[in-house]
């Protein structure tokens, strides 16, 4: 046995003695007690978040058009390429702040011009949205850009 192994064995014995005093039922109680406690804390924080959110998400501005825009966003799986407030796929630009970055008319014209068919470049599909649907998407992105996100993203490039 080398010295390192002996040291290892000594440490192991000490740990064994310590772990014998620490019983399975103590471990079980930590699991149930700890988990339950933090579930309750989390629910409490959720409740508090729910109360504070109206001032941050400006839900009074969620018009029928904004809600319709969100549905179009979902039903074309926009999040499969883009991120929105940093969540989603990382293949295409962040769109949480695309409204202040580009403006409504640009967003609509851009979507209508797709795909670019430039060889080798990433391609965005043509979704064939109506004028009204494009307006709804823009309204949704405008509302999204007005959420209080604690100053994220760091700059306009998203």
């Amino acid at each position, binding site marked *: 046995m080398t010295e390192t192994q002996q040291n290892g064995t000594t440490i192991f014995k000490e740990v064994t003695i310590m772990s014998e005093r620490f019983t399975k039922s103590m471990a079980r109680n930590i699991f149930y007690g700890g988990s339950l406690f933090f579930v309750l804390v*989390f629910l409490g924080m959720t409740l508090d978040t729910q109360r504070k959110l109206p001032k941050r998400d400006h839900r009074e501005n969620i018009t029928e058009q904004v809600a319709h825009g*969100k549905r179009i966003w979902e039903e074309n799986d926009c*999040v499969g*390429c883009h991120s929105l407030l940093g969540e989603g796929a990382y293949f295409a630009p962040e769109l949480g702040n695309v409204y202040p970055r580009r403006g409504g008319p640009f967003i609509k014209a851009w979507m209508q011009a797709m795909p670019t068919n430039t060889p080798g470049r990433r391609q965005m599909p043509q979704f064939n949205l109506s004028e009204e649907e494009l307006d709804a998407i823009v309204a949704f992105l405008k509302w999204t850009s007005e959420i209080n*996100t604690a100053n994220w993203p760091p700059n306009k*490039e998203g």
Partner: protein
Amino acid sequence: MKYASQAVAKPYFIFAIMLFVGQILFGLIIGMQYVIGDFLFPEIPFNVARMVHTNLLIVWLLFGFMGASYFLVPEESETELYSPLLAKILFWVFAAAGVATILGYLLVPYARLAEMTGNDLLPTMGREFLEQPTITKIGIVIVCLGFLFNIVMTVLKGRKTVVTMILIMGLAGLSLLFLFSFVNPDNLVLDKFYWWWVVHLWVEGVWELILASILAFILIKTTGVDREIIEKWLYVIIAMALITGIIGTGHHYFWIGTPEYWQLWGSIFSAMEPIPFFMMTVYAFNIYNQRKREHPNKAAVLWALGTSVMAFLGAGVWGFLHTLAPVNYYTHGTQITAAHGHMAFYGAYVMIVLAIISYAMPLIRGKAAANSNQAQVWEMWSFWLMTVSMVFITLFLTGAGILQTWLQRVSDTPMSFMATQDQLQIFYWLREIAGAVFLIGLVVYLISFFIKGDEEASA
């Protein structure tokens, strides 16, 4: 195999591996689209290939968890499965629903799929990882309930062990939290808030219970160490997982409109999330070092020890890298997230499912304890090929993420997203090459099932 009904796990494992192959092929497609933007466009747009890649992962892991449960619960409970027939029926229901959903993604435009499946009646589609049509989600709930019923009834009529209790808590939590996939308010902030109750509370919550209980089962079986010791530390690990992981959800509530106190609480608790993973590594190696026997299934032991290390690196270390709010402010939604996601899922969940398959399949296929040495050599080669290439995938994506963060977020003259992406090409090419090596590892893994070997390893 001690109970005949454990064999119902077999189709679950085989189908899981088939979906795994599909997941990797689509991973290579989207990896290629990162460097050759119009690759396979418009036939397979990036978003479609990506949802096939991620959804196949989730579904094959669920098949793996179910197979694992059907295998280990009868053995732990020392009784036959309550209803092998129900398990077989649910297998076909789930497999058919899964295949139909993937075909739906590939064959019709997503908007058309939403229309065909009546998404407007109960809109749940189009959110990351929860892209499945509402009807598929309902199917998943039904399959999970039937599965849980079968497992719980088995445990009730047999021996109750800590391993099965924790497994059931994990599975019940998985099913319960999935119900939040039906919560989709018009308010994006609320949508995102509860979306994480599925995604985060799955992978950094209840799934860890499933992981830890399967790992404990394999350790009990392969090392012969006293169950009391293994179960005691199992409790400690999952206690730490939930104590840190539940409030740790807060690391997703930094920049989505939620109050700013989440930055503090999310940072503190998620900074502690590596602790249970580190304990798991120490636990697995300690128990292995105290082993009372040399189990002939060396491959299964390798997967079990490997998962404890890779989960710590992927979920623990790579999670910690970008979890503190001041860091995350710059890295949020960059390739750093992708790097972490890949190694965490592979290390924690892919490897534990491959570990239980490695342990169970030889027994289900009628071997005494393990495959032949030749077959195990192939399997262990696949372990190293897949694991090392996943390490490189993670390193390359981390490189891409650091450069991206610098150019697009930190710089005084930030570059646009697409201009930044052009600068990351070399990392994306290297990632794709590492991905191809991963595929080779997977092929070696598949071959290992067909290697006979001249001699059965004895128990």
